[in-house]
């Protein structure tokens, strides 16, 4: 975890003013937006209300870096017409949970590895991520089992703690420090007491979380490749792919061309390893012909292959796949010994 750089506080009553100042500095500010019973990350209006009492956003914020549908380039009469790279827009994403920020940190390992993904990098470099430490993890949360924590810093630029009367803002990256310094007139240095209070919040939340026995999971699953471990979940699985759409670290995409008369665009869209055409060869051969191979691929990718390639589990323990699976496949039961 990065060392603490600076810690500031701002009174809750003055937080809306800080938000306005952020917008007036040219940032587009995205924060929690209530939509019926759900909370999503959306552009914040003139009179933002900031309470961070939700468990997590319905959808993961990966779409801010890897949109569900994104134009790669446009063409006209079969020739490249324009670079589709839009002018970079400075953004602040406020209110992510640390698990989702960790997911961005994991996506960096794929998209910022050479050759860098031009579209992802542009968005990543122009975005300040402010995560809110969790005081009340859900029963389906298991971040502490997969390398994260309710106040872990990976992927965030700033961590926000709710101290009751005030919010504590802790810069955890250089980008976060530079950002906070722009608003130093509106914040106060955190006192020792406040820093102690924030530590307590994080520790208490972590202590309440269930710890899954995942030591050595990569080797264990690699050995179980041909075992019957995959039978039960794949027999239940409908192949709907909802787990991959909700997952903050699932990043597989398709690239397709769309045309209307002589004009067209090349678009990348989220894809899913749960679908049979994902690996279907032009010859008709499919290396993953049944749902068993596809379910196995998803778990193996996250808990074994990713560890081999980047040293990290590609799961952040957000629990969205557990909550949203229509046939109640619980990832924790599949990967636990």
């Amino acid at each position: 975890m990065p060392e603490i750089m600076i810690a500031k506080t701002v009174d809750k009553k003055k937080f809306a003013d800080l938000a306005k100042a952020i917008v007036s500095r040219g940032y587009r500010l995205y924060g929690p937006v209530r939509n019926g019973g759900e909370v999503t990350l959306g552009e914040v209006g003139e009179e933002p209300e900031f309470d961070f009492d939700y468990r997590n956003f319905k959808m993961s914020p990966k779409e801010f870096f890897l949109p569900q549908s994104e134009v790669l380039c446009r063409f006209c009469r079969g020739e490249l017409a324009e670079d589709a790279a839009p002018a970079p827009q400075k953004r602040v994403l406020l209110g992510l949970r640390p698990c989702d920020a960790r997911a961005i940190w994991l996506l960096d390992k794929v998209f910022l590895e050479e050759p860098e993904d031009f579209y992802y990098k542009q968005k990543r470099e122009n975005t300040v991520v402010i995560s809110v430490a969790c005081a009340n993890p859900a029963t389906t949360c298991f971040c502490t089992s997969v390398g994260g924590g309710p106040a872990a810093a990976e992927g965030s630029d700033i961590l926000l703690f709710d101290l009751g009367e005030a919010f504590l803002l802790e810069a955890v990256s250089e980008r976060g420090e530079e950002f906070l310094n722009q608003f130093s007139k509106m914040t106060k240095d955190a006192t020792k007491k406040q820093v102690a209070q924030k530590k307590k919040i994080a520790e208490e939340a972590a202590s309440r979380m269930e710890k899954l026995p995942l030591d050595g999971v990569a080797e264990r699953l690699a050995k179980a490749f041909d075992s019957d471990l995959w039978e039960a979940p794949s027999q239940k699985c409908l192949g709907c792919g909802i787990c991959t759409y909700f997952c903050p670290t699932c990043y597989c995409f398709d690239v397709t061309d769309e045309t209307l008369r002589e004009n067209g665009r090349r678009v990348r869209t989220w894809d899913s390893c749960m679908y049979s055409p994902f690996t279907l060869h032009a010859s008709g051969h499919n290396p993953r012909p049944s749902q068993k191979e596809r379910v196995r691929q998803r778990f193996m990718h996250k808990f074994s292959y990713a560890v081999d390639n980047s040293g990290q589990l590609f799961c952040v323990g957000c629990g969205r796949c557990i909550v949203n699976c229509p046939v109640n496949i619980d990832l924790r039961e599949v990967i636990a010994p």
Partner: protein
Amino acid sequence: MKGNHGNPYLPYPVEIQKVTVENADRDIKTFKLAFLNKEHEEAFQYLPGQFAELSIFGKGESPIGIASSPTEEGYLLFTVKRMGVVTSDLHNSEEGRIIGVRGPLGKSYPLDQIEGKNVLIVGGGFAFTTLRSAIRYLLAPENRGRINNLTCIYGARSPGELIYKEELKEWEERDDIEMYVTVDKGDESWTGREGFVPTVLKEVAPSSESAICLVCGPPIMLKFTFPVLSDLGFPPENIVVSLEMRMKCGIGKCGRCNIGNLYVCKDGPVFTLEQLQALPAEY
């Protein structure tokens, strides 16, 4: 790989200079492509075994092995079988059409490890394309002296399905490459060898002493070729095979062409048999 404007997703524009029908079924064609811009040509530095995405705006992209050798300057060759949307559209192309090329992608054959060695090339069907690149590369005056014997066994279903027929004849007449061309079943005019590639390989029995073998062919051929190579004494680390997989991005991001933890596009398409044996058999 840096693409157009440093963006690896954008193809370079190229002109189709020549289209050659390769087989009797007329569903395999070789496209000779020339870059429109000199700086793109200079940026496209490749070696045998690498591939590229052929890009047709409005249709999509297809990953195809590069059939030309970097020792042939001024053009690229791609031999393409008509299969889906992109390759069908490509097959309908006339000379002079502008398409895109994105690459070079993937790893090449281990040509840095061939110094002083015997090189055995085993190919089947239209998967002979990047092996053609390797042969042209090794036969180039600046490279031929780097290796000892060069032996090639190449087979197809029928005489009409052999690709690069003119070149095969040329190579058969040369004395710096030993060519064994075979067909599963000949026709009235066929005077050459008959028999499956693994059978011919067994008969020819090239030495595995200080040798490296490059293999590319349909799965059934690979399945029966590996045991023969093993019997000849080739250890798995000296057997190099090129694989195919469904691909999109070609740069290890889109997530679909993996075998175990390796991506065919970025860690392959060239693998040693030793590498493959350590991976799940999911290809």
